[in-house]
């Protein structure tokens, strides 16, 4: 009943790798690994697509399958049950899962700055948290803790904000049903820009909201017993994102090419790819390497997570794999 087709690209790649290895020396078996992404295909995972496309993982002896996410595809179940070796989560999601008994560690951080933003229209803009007072905001009710934390950090009276539950869609803002939206900087605002709707974006991370996003998670068991595979997986991933930074347009083009059936628009993907750069790369990653985090960034996260109602310790983060990756790769 299940139906599996090997994408031609991957097949060719496998064949090429096979040929190359055969020439180079003794044949190394490719270990099959599942890597669970957190959403539908888009340039959000551009670095991973590059790693796959350029064969960074097959060089490591891995046959990586990228599993797409979706509205009804939580990341934690496949990772906790071992179906996927590594998954993409966020510090708040991971903290909640750990609270519920999942043995996860955050082993690298793709988005140094959290992508959550308040999007508004220039005629009635939200440039700083104080501007939220007296406005209506469209958001999923599940994100109430995010708004509460933002208000608390910035001394905004949350009772002066009218919360309207909306689906994840820019239409309520554009059609004037709400004054602003809580969304990712990299999706709904980009959609509005492409549709020709000017918009103002206020990044929560610029106002004290420190929550690592697009974090790489693995189980304690995998970190201990499948360490070599995890290291190879991370190595390829890091190389992919290093390439991504150099040419985001190429990453966008590759994404559209790899997923011709996902309804992706090249222009949108290019703008999204560029918008992501400011969130993923910083002085810290320039000096220490992609995915890096420090005691300071972790401490800031613990504080914000506390405001979100999640009590965590620095134990949630484990940098040892990343240290090995960058020690070897750089």
């Amino acid at each position, binding site marked *: 009943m299940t139906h599996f087709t090997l994408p031609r690209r991957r097949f060719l790649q496998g064949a090429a790798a096979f040929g190359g290895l055969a020439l180079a020396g003794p044949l190394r078996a490719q270990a099959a690994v599942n890597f669970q992404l957190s959403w539908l295909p888009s340039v959000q995972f551009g670095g991973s697509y590059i790693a796959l496309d350029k064969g960074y993982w097959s060089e490591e002896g891995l046959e990586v399958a990228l599993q797409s996410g979706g509205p009804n595809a939580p990341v934690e179940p496949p990772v906790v049950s071992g179906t996927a070796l590594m998954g993409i989560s966020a510090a708040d999601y991971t903290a909640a899962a750990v609270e519920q008994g999942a043995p996860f560690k955050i082993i690298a951080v793709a988005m140094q700055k959290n992508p959550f933003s308040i999007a508004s229209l220039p005629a009635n803009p939200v440039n700083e948290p104080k501007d939220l007072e007296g406005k209506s905001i469209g958001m999923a009710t599940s994100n109430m803790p995010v708004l509460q934390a933002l208000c608390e950090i910035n001394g905004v009276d949350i009772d002066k904000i009218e919360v309207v539950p909306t689906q994840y869609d820019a239409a309520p803002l554009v059609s004037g049903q709400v004054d602003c939206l809580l969304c990712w900087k990299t999706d709904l605002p980009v959609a509005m820009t492409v549709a020709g709707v000017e918009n103002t974006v206020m990044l929560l991370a610029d106002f004290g909201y420190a929550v690592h996003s697009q974090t790489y998670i693995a189980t304690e068991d995998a970190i201990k017993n499948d360490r070599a595979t995890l290291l190879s997986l991370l190595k390829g991933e890091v190389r992919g994102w290093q390439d991504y930074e150099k040419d985001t347009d190429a990453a966008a083009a590759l994404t559209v090419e790899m997923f*011709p059936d996902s309804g992706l628009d090249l222009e949108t993907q290019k703008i999204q790819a560029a918008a992501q750069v400011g969130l993923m790369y910083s002085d810290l990653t320039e000096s220490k390497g992609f995915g890096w985090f420090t005691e300071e960034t972790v401490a800031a996260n613990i504080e914000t997570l506390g405001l979100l109602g999640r009590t965590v310790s620095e134990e949630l983060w484990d940098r040892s794999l990343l240290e090995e990756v960058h020690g070897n790769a750089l």
Partner: protein
Amino acid sequence: MTLSLRAPLMTVAPRATMAVLSLIGVLVGWEILARALASTYLLAGPVDVTRYLIDNSGLMLRALSVTLYEAMWGFVWGNLAGIALAAVVVLVPRFENLVQSLALVVFCLPLVATGPILRVLYGPGLGPQVTLAALAVYYTTFVPTVVGLRATPSTWLDLVASFGHGRWKELTVVRATAALPYLVVGLQIAAPAAFLGAMVGEFTGAERGMGVLAIQAMRSLDVQATWALATVASLVSILAYLVVGGIGKYLWPDRPSIIMASPAQNDGAGRGAKWLKTCGLGFMTLGAVLVLWWGLFELFDVNSFFAKRPMDVWSYLVTSPKALEHRLVLWEAMGETMAFAVPGYLAGLLLGAVLAGVFVLMPNLAGLVLPVSIALRSIPIVTTAPLIVLCLGRGAAGTITIVAVMIFFPTLIACLQGLRQAPGQILDVFNSFATSPLRTLFLARMPAMLPAFFASARMAVPAAILAVTVAEWLSTGTGIGNLMALTTSTSDYNMLYSSIAAVTGLSALAYAAVGALERVVLTIYAPEQVR
């Protein structure tokens, strides 16, 4: 005969003309509305939709072929399961009540919960899509097939017995033949449902298909794409409905008169004994559900982090120190959901029944409105729910409309069947006394309609719950649908499974309650149905 006796209140026009007229009317109205709302990014008209479809025909065709492929396998497996269950019920009548209750419970399971589990069990591929499509259809095939297998003239059975054949031969030769027309009715309802199931299945992590495109379109503020997808999905569903119906009509011109079974027949026991029996069945079903729930999870060894067992839910809701708090959260969410589900359910039933009455009085109107009704019912709710909410607002009106739309069409069809069922002799008597059509409707046809009405009222219970939770999940962010969706960010799988248990239990109870009401009413108005 009855047709010629009805005084046409409208000028007679061929049905096809009326259908074309109604189609043109809908298209023009749609385009005008779209133009009026052009600046709001809420609605794209038929012109824009057509343009989008032409520009993106390759993408659409590929997505459609993927989703159709999933839906087709789901249709096959789901219907095979429905038929097999029906055969079990007829071969081993002792299991009938239990199998029927279990089948209902499984049908009531919310997609939000089954999706992720199926994805983990199947891994990548089409497994969850096909399974969810199958789950969406098996019940509506199972129910009419059981009725069909039973609707065998006793003389046929006597004939088989006189040749010395057993129950198996009786089932495969005689009963199967009798059941075929009933099966067609089930398959007809199943065709659009399978498509919807496949689309929802794609939310569990697919890379292509109509469901994937729908999410992508909504997020990219691509109104043309959103409405183009909704249009294609509904056209396909309508087509599937008509094609399956057409094949059935061609092969077996005699359509069955009553589609759904009436609840368990009276076996002559007293009221007290009947109550005991009902309670016993309830407990037996509950026990079977718990054992299956626990057993299947253990058998497949699904991780208890996200696949909670009955004991986990019990401790979460009853014995843990925070049990009261958990129950309150659940209770409040259920209240919110019911505030939408109950009015929507009642409105849908009422609308269906009233429209059926109107159609009998004005048969030509049926040709005008029926195609629109099929369209409304066939548009997959995952695409319509956000759109209806966008258009009607995220208050009560939007959600109640979604529920009503899901329910009114099957009710309408069932009630029309019932109304036309009124015995000819009775109608002749009314006619000879020159009774007004309205009076005939109320006094002669209405009692004939009641069994069909109640049957669809029972079937509408799970449909209403499905509609309201999907709307809450995708659009309004309230109630139990939202509570279940929250799990994605909170990993609070205990709350998810408590919600599932509450929703499923409530659906089953509501189903039983409608069944009980049905028995009371039918005992008065249609005693032959309850015997």
